[in-house]
């Protein structure tokens, strides 16, 4: 059986401004702002749809393939 490639959002925490634009658009509430410092992705919930990456005003979110 063919294994599906999983994707996930990855945040560059050092450049994140914690504005929360990503959290607003996430359909699965998989990304949240951690204590006003940076965005954090919940790896279990994230399906890598890319909405947050598109929205992020600082463009610090990247969708990466996850190797099993």
């Amino acid at each position, binding site marked *: 059986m063919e294994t599906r490639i999983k994707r996930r*959002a*990855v*945040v560059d*925490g050092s*450049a994140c*401004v*914690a*504005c*929360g*634009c990503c*959290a*607003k658009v996430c*359909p699965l509430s998989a*990304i949240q*702002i*951690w*204590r*006003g*410092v*940076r*965005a*954090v*992705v*919940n*790896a279990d919930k994230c399906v890598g749809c890319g909405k947050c990456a*598109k*929205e*992020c*005003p*600082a*463009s*610090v979110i990247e969708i990466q393939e996850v190797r099993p």
Partner: protein
Amino acid sequence: MKKRWYDYLWIVELTYLVLGFFNILFAWMGLLFFFIPLIIAAARGTKGYCNRYCGRGQIFGLLGGRFGLSRKKDIPRWMKSKWFRYGFLIFFFIMFFQMLWNTYLVFAGAQDLRQVVTLLWTFKLPWNWAYHGTLFHPGVAQFAFGFYSVMLTSTVLGLITMVLFKPRSWCVYCPMGTMTQLICRAKNRKGDLATEQKG
């Protein structure tokens, strides 16, 4: 996604900007937009204001997103760098204190009230049509003119970067956002991100 009451706070922000065209003294209300984020950051250690309540961000989000007035391109690397963000915060502070100094001079009687709104710290726009006198000292009005200048300038800057880059590009270098993030960093220094899930 279900809309919450705070998703409509852009109306408050818009009303604020419009009121400044009718009576400059309404500019004083803008202090709320300064103090609420700081109080939330200091008391709760979150950027709850940016994340939920910022009406200005919502305006940029609506105009740039729904109305499509944004190129939706990546912001240049230097604009999201720490030195630019902190540099802009310091510059903003200096200009803010200069505005407070001008207010002081009017209060002290060393300077007359100037009925102008200064856009982008340079362009002096005559604004006398929004001034109908004050029951208080002219210094109260001077502060209003100065404060409204700050608010209008940041709105114009935000609109420019909204068009050029992503809708909420202003959020990247917003001095209030930088300041509240610094407060949150200081407050949560002991908190350990490793214990929670990492992005």
